[in-house]
């Protein structure tokens, strides 16, 4: 094995030793890192609206008579047992929810099986969900936007799968919307937030999304929400 800038064998050995000596810490870190990233993205969406002048209030469930802040890190659980944010500007109020079940755009009330999807981040109309159970989904016309949070690097199939989600939940976003005079509609667009890098295969799909002018975003370590970074190479 030829070395170019450094001794590869030594670096590999040191890396292996790091994994061995820090195994307990790495395991502990790994036990919550996915959920921490979800909490982070939930907070990022709050900041996104705050930057646009919205007022944000956190609403907490009562546990043993006391208000407790609880994010919903699971697809199971009734929405009223978890915290959510109320986001208001002038006369308009919307809600930001974590792990909420949403009916798909094509779902019909009388169909045999329900068609709904549990989304990591949901922006919805300001509606009362106090009677909703773990299996209840909000109607699709309450949905304003949504986000999928993946604590991994993005590859083509992940981005394509997200487009599939948008097709089911908000197909209107998959049209030629981001044309020359596009300024956004005031709400965050449906997004996929991958914490890692965009692999070239994912970048390829992303470029076709841009060509098609879809109103969706893919964030990653190279293009985080709310941060200006140098453009990565496009070749």
């Amino acid at each position, binding site marked *: *094995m030829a070395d170019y800038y*450094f001794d590869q064998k030594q670096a590999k050995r040191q890396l292996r030793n790091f994994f061995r000596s820090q195994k307990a810490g790495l395991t502990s870190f790994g036990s919550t890192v996915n959920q921490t990233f979800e909490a982070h993205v939930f*907070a990022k969406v709050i*900041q996104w609206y705050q930057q646009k002048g919205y007022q944000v209030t956190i609403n907490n469930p009562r546990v043993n008579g006391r208000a407790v*802040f609880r994010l919903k890190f699971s697809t199971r659980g009734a929405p009223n047992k978890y915290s959510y944010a109320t986001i208001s500007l002038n006369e308009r109020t919307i809600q930001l929810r974590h792990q909420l079940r949403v009916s798909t755009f094509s779902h019909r009330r009388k169909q045999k099986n329900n068609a709904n999807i549990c989304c990591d981040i949901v922006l919805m109309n300001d509606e009362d969900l106090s009677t909703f159970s773990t299996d209840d989904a909000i109607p699709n016309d309450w949905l304003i936007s949504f986000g999928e949070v993946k604590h991994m*690097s993005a590859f083509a199939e992940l981005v394509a799968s997200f487009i599939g989600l948008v097709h089911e939940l908000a197909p209107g976003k998959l049209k030629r919307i981001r044309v020359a005079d596009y300024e956004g509609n005031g709400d965050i667009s449906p997004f996929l937030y991958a914490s890692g890098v965009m692999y070239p295969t994912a970048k390829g799909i992303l470029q076709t999304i841009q060509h098609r002018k879809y109103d969706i975003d893919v964030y990653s370590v190279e293009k985080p929400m709310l941060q200006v970074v140098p453009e990565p190479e496009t070749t």
Partner: protein
Amino acid sequence: MNTAEIFRYAPRYISQRFYAINGYVWKSFFPDNSLNERLKQIKSEKERAEELARLKDVAGEASLVILILLLRKFLSEGSNAAMQAVDTFRELGVEGFQIGSKYFADRNENVMEGEVLAEQLMQTITSPKLLSLIEQAQYPFQIINRYRELI
């Protein structure tokens, strides 16, 4: 030492996340059919094999730098994510949040866990050149560009 050996003691979530970096680097250097096109230009089979081995070595070294860069970032951004979440929630009157048995608030050990591990990782690496490559790069494509000079 091959990739599997590097990850021998790593938790599964780390090996799963970083195992494919070599493929990412290889595809970045040689998209589509460009490697075959390049090797076809070399007439002798022996020289083709030597060139392929050289390219694999370059890609292997670049992959190692990117692996450490991304691992450090992954650990440190775990803390950044926790800090930003904690700070945003605190501004809204929420002191902290619970994930399983861990409570995240201010800059407590759960919030800082990733940053401490990232520092440990950098202390493990002794090559000044490798450290400098990692320190100077923010994103993998910068390392790719650096090694592209050798391709």
